[in-house]
């Protein structure tokens, strides 16, 4: 089964500081990985997926097969980044999310 682990339930950073939300995966083969975000009073939505190699709202995530990681990074945090972030595997089967990390950006 495809599994992901998010080791931090809460991450607090000051505005303007770099952000790194950790995600590790534990399965073989070619992983498909996603980051989802839930802003306050909004529905959970896709932030980015590794196959797109895109930057969304200043966030990037690189798949590191050596470290089996897919950490989400942003060089300068903004207050509007405060939200719940979930890492998840993709693929054509049931999707079990990580526990999620609450990012709190302190003004």
């Amino acid at each position: 089964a495809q599994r992901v682990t998010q080791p931090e339930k809460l991450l607090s950073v000051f505005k303007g500081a770099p952000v790194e939300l950790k995600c590790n995966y534990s399965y073989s083969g070619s992983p498909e990985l996603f980051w989802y975000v839930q802003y306050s009073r909004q529905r959970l939505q896709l932030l980015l997926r590794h196959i797109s190699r895109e930057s969304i709202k200043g966030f990037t995530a690189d798949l590191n097969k050596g470290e089996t990681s897919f950490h989400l990074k942003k060089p300068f945090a903004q207050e509007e980044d405060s939200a719940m972030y979930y890492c998840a595997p993709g693929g054509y089967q049931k999707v079990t999310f990580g526990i999620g990390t609450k990012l709190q950006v302190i003004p």
Partner: protein
Amino acid sequence: GAGVSQSPSNKVTEKGKDVELRCDPISGHTALYWYRQSLGQGLEFLIYFQGNSAPDKSGLPSDRFSAERTGGSVSTLTIQRTQQEDSAVYLCASSPRQGTGNTIYFGEGSWLTVV
């Protein structure tokens, strides 16, 4: 509509009553998921439907929980004899079977409060 639709958005029920939560997935999406979101507990997988295959019920917490999906579209999650620990947000999501990335699209959730 274009998105996943859930109803009711809020439900307050008395302990011991049965509740039904409804989900209308995005048209054409063959995969449908139910999750439970509790404060501090993240997203708990409940059940997964994929086309005409038997659903994966491995996440249902007890036999009081059941779900069905009629005609490969609308799904209903039923909780019998509700308990206070069932209070949570129940999220439905759908996903296309084919295509790149297999992104999951979520509804806004049904907030269940058992009193």
